[in-house]
């Protein structure tokens, strides 16, 4: 969980794509998942997600993300299947329509979430921000806020781990509790964590300020993000994907 949003260095096709192209690909996969209404197409998209993960050279991470999503998906699937009233019952109160809609909902969720996590695995967060500012002319303060927030997640999680460890060591039964009881024990610890987080983010703001945060413009970046042939290929692929989602 902690390294979910961590960049994994590499030189794969996906690493070499322009950050903006990568974002486009992510968005296109999401859009396609919402346009289509066919289960088989959604499964195809999921396979595409996995393929992307493997091409990017992060198979282990891809599988981990999938595992994490499956847990949430299972919960949603059961909920959705139980709540749908339409269609003919298959067993107890579960109907065939219920199963189908539930299947689509969770598949969509997985299809949409995976590329979002993967794009961060193959793109340096700074490149992402720089490209957004340079190419799409997103105002720098927004890009900075987003990148800082993403960078912050693993720090927050590891701090949470440290706090839980410290509390376990003084006798709080984190190592025995599960589920909601554990959640109930974690919540009171969030206050100190938030205090230290606020302190930290303020420091980060000062650190950025004394290194010319306010001077930064769209042309400040040293690294350039030109579009290459592989980007063109990716864009064509995106178009094909959307077309397929509409036609199929």
């Amino acid at each position, binding site marked *: 969980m902690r*390294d979910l949003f*961590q*960049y994994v*260095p590499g030189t794969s096709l996906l690493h070499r794509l322009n950050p903006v192209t990568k974002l486009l690909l992510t968005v296109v996969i999401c859009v396609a998942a919402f346009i289509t209404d066919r289960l088989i197409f959604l499964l195809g998209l999921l396979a595409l997600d996995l393929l992307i993960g493997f091409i990017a050279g992060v198979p282990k991470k891809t599988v981990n993300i999938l595992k994490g999503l499956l847990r949430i998906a299972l919960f949603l699937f059961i909920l959705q299947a139980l709540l749908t009233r339409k269609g003919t019952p298959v067993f107890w109160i579960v109907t065939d329509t219920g199963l189908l809609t539930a299947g689509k909902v969770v598949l969509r969720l997985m299809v949409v979430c995976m590329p979002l996590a993967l794009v961060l695995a193959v793109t*340096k*967060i*700074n490149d992402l921000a720089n490209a957004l500012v340079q190419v799409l002319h997103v105002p720098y303060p927004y890009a900075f806020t987003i990148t*800082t927030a993403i*960078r912050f997640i*693993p*720090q927050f999680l590891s701090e949470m781990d440290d706090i839980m460890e410290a509390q376990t060591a003084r006798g709080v039964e984190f190592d025995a509790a599960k589920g909601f009881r554990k959640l109930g024990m974690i919540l009171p610890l969030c206050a100190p964590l938030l205090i230290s987080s606020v302190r*930290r*983010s303020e*420091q*980060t*703001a*000062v*650190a*950025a*300020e*004394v*290194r*010319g*945060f*306010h*001077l*930064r413009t769209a042309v*400040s*970046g*040293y*690294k350039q993000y030109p579009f290459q042939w592989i980007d063109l290929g990716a864009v064509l692929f995106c178009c094909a994907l959307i077309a397929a989602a509409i036609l199929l």
Partner: protein
Amino acid sequence: MIDIQDLTFTYKDEPAPALSGISLTVTDGAFLGIIGPAGAGKTTLIRAVSGVIPHHYTGDYYGSVRVNGLDTVDTPLTDLSRLVGMVFQDVDSQIISSVVEDELLYGLENFGVPREEIPSRLEFALDRVGIADLRDRTIASLSGGQRQKVAIASVIALRPRVLVLDEPTGELDPRSSRQIFSLLKALNREYGITVVVVEQKIMLLCEFADMLAVLDQGKIVRQGKTREVLARSDELEALGVNCPRVTLLTRLLSERLGKSLPVSVSLDEAEKLVRGLMQ
């Protein structure tokens, strides 16, 4: 280089001043160490020198701080930061990138350093700090000492005239701490960068700093050449400031031998002193 006149500062919503009546002059190319108990105002003083006070942290501000002739109140923070590089106490909150190279680029890009000059600046900073091999590493994969060096390199790349550091060796082991201080001393000697460093490790500070300022309850209670400040080690101890053991040794020897001996601030000096006495 730095000229502080009668500075009193109270943070917004705080009842008592964090600094009161501070006057301090740091000449160009000096290496000043700041020491004092917790809550004495060391970090506040560092912030005032770098201009973060009053530009970022506001409050009641009396007196003046001039850096290279510029009044920190009238000069925009970004102009001050071209002059003064700052290294924070908590390195992790200072680093804003995920890869070493990007962290160094950040300030260079923002301050509009010409494109063709950037590679040489990058290499200079990486080589000088001794982390050229870490250039493409992710920050998450670095140790505390390595991160500290990255933070220093990212500031050095901007070629500041003054370097201010707030407990730069806090979580480092003795050897890495020494490396950081040796690095600061080299930058100070070779490029004439004025260094102001807050540090609790008194032995390191005394060995490397030419000047010491002792803070207590927002006031400067001692300032001067390191040796002169240490000469009154008994008074420092009364203030709750530790002294290096070599200084204690000099004091004990002076008392026992009934003659005043030169204060030693490092092992080398103490060795010389004792060898001299033994002859």
